[in-house]
């Protein structure tokens, strides 16, 4: 509806005991991913930007247009914002055909029947749903319905598209296909449109967004280029969604001293000052698991980063088995191993006879560990 420009939003809102204070910016044509655990305020942020919720403070502007300015009492209603929303559920109007759904936006803004149909056609073709034009929503598969919903959102030519976990409700086949479609339309470099994507999946963030913010407890705890944030997480939430292990402590020369006093040596230290709060990050695939009775042998070997642990749980994870590790019952000296995950080949699990409760020895080679400055709450 309007030539977009970028988004600038500062939102301050309190709901019950929960307070969200976030500051986000998206350049024209850019896509920002918002990651965060449940209840971190992602959806509230989205609703404030879409105009579906009144923040208690702050402002939202899209390009030159001010959409919300609490101090000046400005609150443009949702239908005049030019902000499109696509959620988990496609929410196609059940009484309209696919074509009428896609044409809804242009029609609602006063386009004639023929003109709206023409716009709808274009978008249905771009999203490969043109052959479904005469279908009713209940005749569509989940993936088709979500593609139609995306076509409907984009046919309205919003300056900003808000995507609230658009792949979350799709099955294993439809998800990747929809991700590819989203990638194509979001990354077409149209400077008139920017996008904001709420997701749980680091793959979405990596493939669809150029930058990312991580919300936790109503505050932005990490932000930056997607690749950098996910490769060097500073909070355990980010590490978990990035599928990485994270151990907190303080930086020492060539490594990290954990909270319980163990020292992990690391190959990469990212220029962290010794003594500064830091995190050690390493992928589960680099954690090696040995049977508990071989502890002495393991420690005598080349591995410096070792610890005693017990297996807490096992679950299949693609071609490997992902072990969740707990601290040993005996003592606190290897507390840093608690909560780690380790990927072990299925054959090895059988060979070692791994099962929950079993004592094991874990080792992480220094080459796999990166140490980064930790998020301390003021970044």
């Amino acid at each position, binding site marked *: 509806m309007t030539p977009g420009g970028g988004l600038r939003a500062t939102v301050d809102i309190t709901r019950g005991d929960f307070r969200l204070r976030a500051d986000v910016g998206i350049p024209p044509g850019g896509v920002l991913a918002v990651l965060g655990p449940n209840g971190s305020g992602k959806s509230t942020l989205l609703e404030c930007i879409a105009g579906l919720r009144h923040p208690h403070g702050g402002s939202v502007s899209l390009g030159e247009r001010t959409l919300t300015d609490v101090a000046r009492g400005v609150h443009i209603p949702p239908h005049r914002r030019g*902000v499109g929303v696509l959620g988990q*559920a496609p929410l*196609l109007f059940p*009484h309209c055909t696919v074509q009428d759904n896609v044409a809804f936006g242009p029609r*609602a803004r006063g386009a004639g029947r023929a003109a709206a149909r023409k716009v709808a056609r274009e978008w249905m073709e771009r999203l490969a749903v043109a052959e479904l034009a005469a279908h009713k929503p209940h005749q569509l598969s989940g993936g088709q319905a979500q593609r139609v919903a995306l076509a409907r959102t984009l046919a309205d030519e919003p300056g900003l598209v808000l995507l609230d976990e658009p792949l979350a409700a799709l099955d294993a086949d439809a998800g990747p296909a929809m991700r590819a479609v989203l990638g194509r339309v979001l990354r077409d470099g149209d400077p008139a449109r920017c996008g904001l994507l709420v997701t749980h999946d680091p793959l979405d963030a990596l493939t669809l967004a150029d930058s990312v913010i991580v919300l936790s407890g109503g505050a932005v705890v990490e932000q930056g280029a997607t690749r950098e944030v996910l490769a060097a997480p500073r909070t355990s939430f980010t590490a978990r969604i990035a599928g990485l292990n994270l151990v907190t402590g303080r930086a020492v020369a060539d490594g990290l001293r954990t909270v319980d006093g163990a020292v992990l040596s690391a190959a990469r230290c990212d220029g962290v000052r010794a003594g500064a709060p830091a995190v050690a990050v390493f992928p589960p695939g680099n954690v090696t698991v040995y049977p508990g009775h071989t502890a002495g042998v393991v420690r005598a070997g080349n591995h410096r980063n070792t610890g005693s642990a017990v297996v807490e749980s096992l679950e299949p994870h693609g071609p490997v088995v992902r072990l969740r590790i707990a601290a040993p019952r005996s003592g606190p000296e290897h507390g840093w191993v608690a909560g780690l995950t380790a990927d072990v080949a299925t054959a090895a699990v059988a060979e070692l006879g791994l099962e929950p409760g079993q004592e094991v020895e874990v080792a992480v080679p220094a080459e796999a560990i990166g140490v980064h400055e930790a998020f301390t709450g003021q970044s």
Partner: protein
Amino acid sequence: MTGTGNNAGATSAGSIRAGRTDDTTVAVGVPRLLRVPAALALALVALPIVGLLLRTEFTRLPELLSSQASLHALRLSLTTASLSTLACIVLGVPLAVVLARAAGNLGALLRTIVLLPLVLPPVVGGLALLYLLGVNGFLGYLLDVVAGARVPFTTAAVVLAQTFVAMPFLVISLEGSLRARDENYERVAATLGARPWTVFTRVTCPLLLPALVSGTVLCFARALGEFGATITFAGSLQGVTRTLPLEVYAQAESDIDSAIALSLLLIVIAIVVIGVARPRSLRGRA
């Protein structure tokens, strides 16, 4: 169920019930003991009608039904019930939408007021209408003085009485449907650029259609059967205010065969109304 098909699969617990129900399905939740009171309940509803049918002289039916009084009553009933149903739709749909979105104490108070005619004895409703619109009522007095119009004991009074008692059926049906789903469709429509009026006409109303149909049927049936409020507020004047139920009551004193024939007519109309429009609740599980 209303239009949320897009969310299908969201609840995994639902899948256990989603299995196709056919004659091989075992009803695990229904104790056999319930069948006895259930049968009694059914008998209580069905047997009186059987009694009426047994007492009917079918050979005299055409003659009884085509009497001047019967035809007048039939025409009057159909006209007034249609008019009051129309009034219920025109006024009740907006009321239901406003009620469904009214929050807090105000909403609760408004809902209580709307439900009043449902629990009030119709005679009391008729009396209340009389003391609002009768010559002694404040609005009736005003109408009489300003416009020279007197409402009680006219056909308009019949329509008013029927609208009064039937409105809650429509409003409850619509409001229930509105409150059963959230406003997500409306919110999506708004983000697509639809003004509130466009959202109402192009999204809310079409989604309300099934509830509107069943609500209208209930509303019409209630209006057709209205007795107490009508006789109090509109009296029983043949051709003007004596609707079918009033005619049945009048005939029951003098010509019982005629009364039975008219009762049968009302039953047939009721069955036709239910059969044609089939409220959602009658369809059972699909």
